[in-house]
């Protein structure tokens, strides 16, 4: 099976080089510094580079060719994403990232926190320097601002062990945490090459629906994948108090609801395991899958609307990949 970057005909090496250049060409950062080394290690530890790929796909819908700007925006999107991962790992106290030790476990919480901040600040610096046109500069910066991502995190925090959370609240949190940045990546790529507003808005909408479906799928995997494959006990989200979509559907079953509502921060591993098994055996996972599928179908509808663009096929590749139809 072809890899996503091959299907999209985007050399990941070039993407990675552009990301590395963001640190290498920063005169304020000595190459031998711990900060430079830590960021290089993080970049070289892999990652699918979905967000940079989305920026580049978005750029293919515009009439203007400006590869330099597009590559920089693509690298900026990955920097923003990577910075958020460093901080996520601190918050979750995750020991691993991409199979290697998480940054805060190597350099300490304080240093990792400021390295993440450096990455975000570097993006702001580069965009405000490179973008001569005020309107674009403002547009790109506001798009890449992560206040909504933070709001998603706050929402998640306030809803821990809250079994009265609604599906609407869950979807709003997923939009803020995951979908908005994905949607933005397609849209800023499109805007960078002069794509008309109607098309770039459609791309945003496509990215948002795909992002929500991706988040739902991620939440589903926490129940369907084996502990070995997840690298942590299955049902970890429930264990840490996150009430995800499979749990919300399971809560509609009265018997299951009683079991689920008994889970708290003090619950034993055996108790959580039992509830996870019960959720797995219920039809909550199918209902979750169906809602994910609905978002994918809506995203696919948007692809049809963009059929006149040759790059509509790239959207299909993204959908197949992120929607779980391809590995």
């Amino acid at each position, binding site marked *: 099976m072809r890899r996503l970057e091959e299907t999209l005909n985007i050399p990941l090496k070039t993407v990675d080089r552009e990301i590395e250049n963001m640190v290498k060409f920063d005169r*304020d*950062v000595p190459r031998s*510094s*711990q*900060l430079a080394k830590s960021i290089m290690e993080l970049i070289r530890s892999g990652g699918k580079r979905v967000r940079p790929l989305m920026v580049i796909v978005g750029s293919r819908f515009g009439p203007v060719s400006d590869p330099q700007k597009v590559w920089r925006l693509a690298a900026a999107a990955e920097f923003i994403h990577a910075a*958020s991962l460093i*901080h996520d790992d*601190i*918050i979750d*106290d995750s020991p691993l990232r991409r199979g290697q030790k998480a940054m805060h476990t190597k350099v300490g*919480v*304080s*240093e990792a*926190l*400021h*390295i993440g*901040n*450096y990455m*975000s*600040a*570097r993006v*702001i*610096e580069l965009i*405000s*320097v490179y973008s001569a046109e*005020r309107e674009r*500069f*403002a547009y790109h*910066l*506001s798009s890449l*601002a*992560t*206040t909504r*991502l*933070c*709001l998603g*995190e*706050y*929402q998640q*925090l*306030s809803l821990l062990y809250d079994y009265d959370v609604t599906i609407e609240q869950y979807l709003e949190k997923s939009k803020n945490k995951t979908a908005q940045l994905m949607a933005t990546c397609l849209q800023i790529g499109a805007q960078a090459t002069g794509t008309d507003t109607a098309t770039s808005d459609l791309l945003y909408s496509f990215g948002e629906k795909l992002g929500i479906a991706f988040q739902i799928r991620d939440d589903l995997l926490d129940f369907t994948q084996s502990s070995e494959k997840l690298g942590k006990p299955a049902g970890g989200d429930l264990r840490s108090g996150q009430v995800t979509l499979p749990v919300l559907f399971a809560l509609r079953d009265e018997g299951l609801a009683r079991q689920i509502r008994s889970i708290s921060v003090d619950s034993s591993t055996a108790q959580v395991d039992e509830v996870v098994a019960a959720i797995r055996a219920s039809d909550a996972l199918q209902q979750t899958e169906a809602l994910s599928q609905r978002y994918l179908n809506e995203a696919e509808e948007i692809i049809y609307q963009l059929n006149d663009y040759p790059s509509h096929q790239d959207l299909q590749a993204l959908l197949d990949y992120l929607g779980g139809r391809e590995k």
Partner: protein
Amino acid sequence: MNHHLIQDAYRLLQGECSPEAGIIVDLPALEAAPLAMLLEQYDMTAVRQCRLLTIYIAIKLALQRHKDCELLASGEELTRKVLDGDYLYSFYVELCLKWEEYDLLSHLAPIIKQIQIKRAEGRPEDERLLKGWELFLRLEHNRSTASQAI
């Protein structure tokens, strides 16, 4: 020192922050005072004075929240401090854009980045922030004076 200016800026920031973030603008007034005094030396509208001080307070608060993380173990308090800092670092950018302070944003971006580098090295130089503002206001004043002379 203009206490009203500081209080107005605190209120403005508190009102602009999303209630979902639940951030309490609790920066000690002494931390905001140096810029408040500096702003009073320049000829600008009261509205702009207040906005600039609001942006400054947002950055100072972000710096403070992440500094507090040094001593915290994993848990809700650490999570909140990390998120508050992240939100405020992003929010100051949004405020600059909203109030069309583009030159200020471009001027501050490398300074805030350098502050992060120094903090990551364990040799904080947070005083760069106030110095950066001093330079920005002076340059802006010089430009304005020069253009008036022409």
